[in-house]
């Protein structure tokens, strides 16, 4: 990749990635360890003619980015655990109204105020199931500063193309670590925009899916007047409670994700010949896992690694594939066991599954994982 080499923090990479993707609105509320995103965008957005607003709370911040997106602006908010809890109400609104937007959650310990400066990976299930009701969840979990930049761009692209919110799930370690990264030249990464209508305004139906699963979306103020509601609605956008209309709409929201797995799913899978152990890890725990696997290799223990970059929808295929190769899957995560449940659900007993868990505010070290690998071999 050609471009400008910089020494960036993970949170800065998210802000720069957002600008690269065309983000022109940020609504936020300060919370550690995500604040650098807001601070950087408060300086950078006005320079590119965008807008930054510090709202009165996280609920309002989430609402503001949906409002801005309805006017056609690509929008971002950034938060951490306690703030994410507040955003969930309006995250559901964005799901049902199909308004694209991106939400960064730099995870910290919890529940409640938890460990404001300690890393965590305990929002795994919240990211999937946090907002009430059945809804699609797209959650990306980058593991390096460069990947935060690239995945932020991808988050906007997916969000725009599928008209659904996308969550970027990082943690305090990669949010605050600094690494050399390359900012690609303009045009080097593809940028997608939401589908917009080309019919005459009087014919526009905001949720008409006759031409595809993702309906075209008009900007407020562009001459296409339409109604948006968080109530279940028909193709015209107006409320309905007809069972024959509600259920297909709910199913379509999910299908936008399940029918576009090629676009969304992304993972790294390293397989070592003769491996009897596999490790499944994401984010900063995957970094420790890589170091542990290298050391295990030196001790003559071959280990497979699966690192999902897309955590939701959960990478079922690759997990099942790994389970078919190894006897045991080790699942390190900075929580008391969340992702491990998904691993077990997918593989249906094809392999033994053991966790490596820490919630003391310290990272899972390579040694923690190596010890477990040695135990299970």
């Amino acid at each position, binding site marked *: 990749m050609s471009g400008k080499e910089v020494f960036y923090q993970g949170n800065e990479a998210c802000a720069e990635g957002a600008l690269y993707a065309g983000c022109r609105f940020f609504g936020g509320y300060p919370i550690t360890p995500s604040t650098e995103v807001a601070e950087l965008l408060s300086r950078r957005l006005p320079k590119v003619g965008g*807008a930054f607003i510090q709202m009165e709370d996280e609920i*309002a911040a989430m*609402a503001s980015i949906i409002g*801005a997106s309805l006017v056609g602006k690509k929008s971002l908010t950034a938060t951490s655990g306690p703030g994410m809890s507040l955003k969930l109400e*309006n995250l559901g609104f964005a799901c049902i109204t199909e308004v694209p937007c991106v939400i960064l959650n730099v995870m910290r310990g919890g529940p409640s105020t938890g460990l404001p400066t300690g890393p965590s990976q305990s929002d795994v299930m919240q990211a999937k199931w946090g907002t009430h009701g059945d809804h699609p969840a797209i959650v990306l979990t980058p593991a390096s500063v460069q990947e935060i930049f690239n995945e932020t761009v991808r988050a906007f692209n997916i969000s725009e193309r599928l008209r659904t919110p996308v969550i970027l799930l990082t943690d305090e370690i990669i949010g605050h670590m600094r690494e050399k990264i390359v900012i690609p030249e303009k045009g080097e990464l593809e940028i997608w925009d939401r589908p917009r209508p080309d019919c005459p305004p009087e014919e526009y139906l905001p949720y008409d899916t006759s031409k595809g699963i993702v309906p075209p979306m008009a900007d407020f103020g562009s001459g296409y*007047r339409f109604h*948006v509601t968080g109530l279940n609605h028909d193709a015209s956008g107006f409320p309905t409670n007809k069972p024959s209309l509600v259920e297909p709409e709910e199913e379509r929201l999910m299908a936008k994700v399940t029918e576009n797995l090629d676009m969304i799913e992304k993972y790294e899978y390293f397989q070592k010949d003769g491996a009897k152990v596999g490790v499944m890890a994401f984010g900063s725990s995957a970094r420790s896992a890589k170091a542990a696997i290298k050391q295990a290799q030196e001790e003559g223990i071959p280990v497979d690694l699966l690192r999902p970059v897309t955590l939701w929808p959960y990478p079922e295929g690759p997990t099942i594939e790994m389970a078919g190769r190894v006897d045991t899957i080790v699942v390190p995560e900075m929580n008391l066991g969340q992702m491990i449940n998904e691993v077990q659900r997918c593989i249906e007993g094809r392999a033994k599954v053991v966790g490596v868990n820490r919630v003391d505010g310290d990272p899972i070290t390579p040694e923690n994982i190596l010890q477990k690998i040695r135990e299970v071999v």
Partner: protein
Amino acid sequence: MAFNYDQYMRPGKLPHIWCPGCAHGTVMKAIIRAIDRVGLEKDRTVIVSGIGCASRMPGYVDFNTLHTTHGRSLAFATGVKMADPSLNVICVAGDGDSLAIGGNHFIHACRRNIDITMIVFNNNIYGMTGGQFSPTTPHGRLASTTPYGNPDYAFDVAELSMGAGATYVSRGTVYHAVPLERQIADGITHNGFSVIDALCTCPTTYGRRNKLGSPIDMILWFKDNTVGIKAAQKLSPEEMEGKILTGVFRNDIKPEYCEEYQKIVEMAQGG
């Protein structure tokens, strides 16, 4: 000739969900006439609401309309306005929506002085959920959650708005529909955050429980129990006892939020 409301209504979206005798339609009509009076373009106007009876109003009118989550209309509207300050943004909300769950957003929108017009459909009750007390239910009144009388004290919407920094603040009633229309029109043309406290009635879940008479009696009550701000100056404290003040309480000029932000944009771009 009678005013033609049809030009602003969405065909096929009536009848509305409001109960017989509800005064929300009167406020809606005042809003439509005010929009017509100041000549807002339908394509360039966004009407935002939260949850509750009043919040269903945007569905009936032919603008860009946004029915959001409970209490959050001003937060959504702030994003809309910041994303395109040339749009006309109007919020409609009930007293519970705007002052209880939405209280934080309300005071901060006042403080920012962003050019949004907020019309509070103030009927002193949570109507849609069946008559629970709201932040404007008077002390001692009956509601479905205050069976022994309301222990809370009510907000004065106008005092609250002025305290929080809103630059246009007025109060009208559905009995005084023409002055209400004028206040809404003034609020729309005012460059800054405007609050219009529109006193209206809920005969079904509030009036009936508190034995306030027929829907008409409740509207006529405003005639006898409100005093215009100018008329009030001539009355003694005894004569003002129990009366509600109406009229324009504040109409100040103060820098508007989006215009202030535009200065930041120019500064950041080295202008």
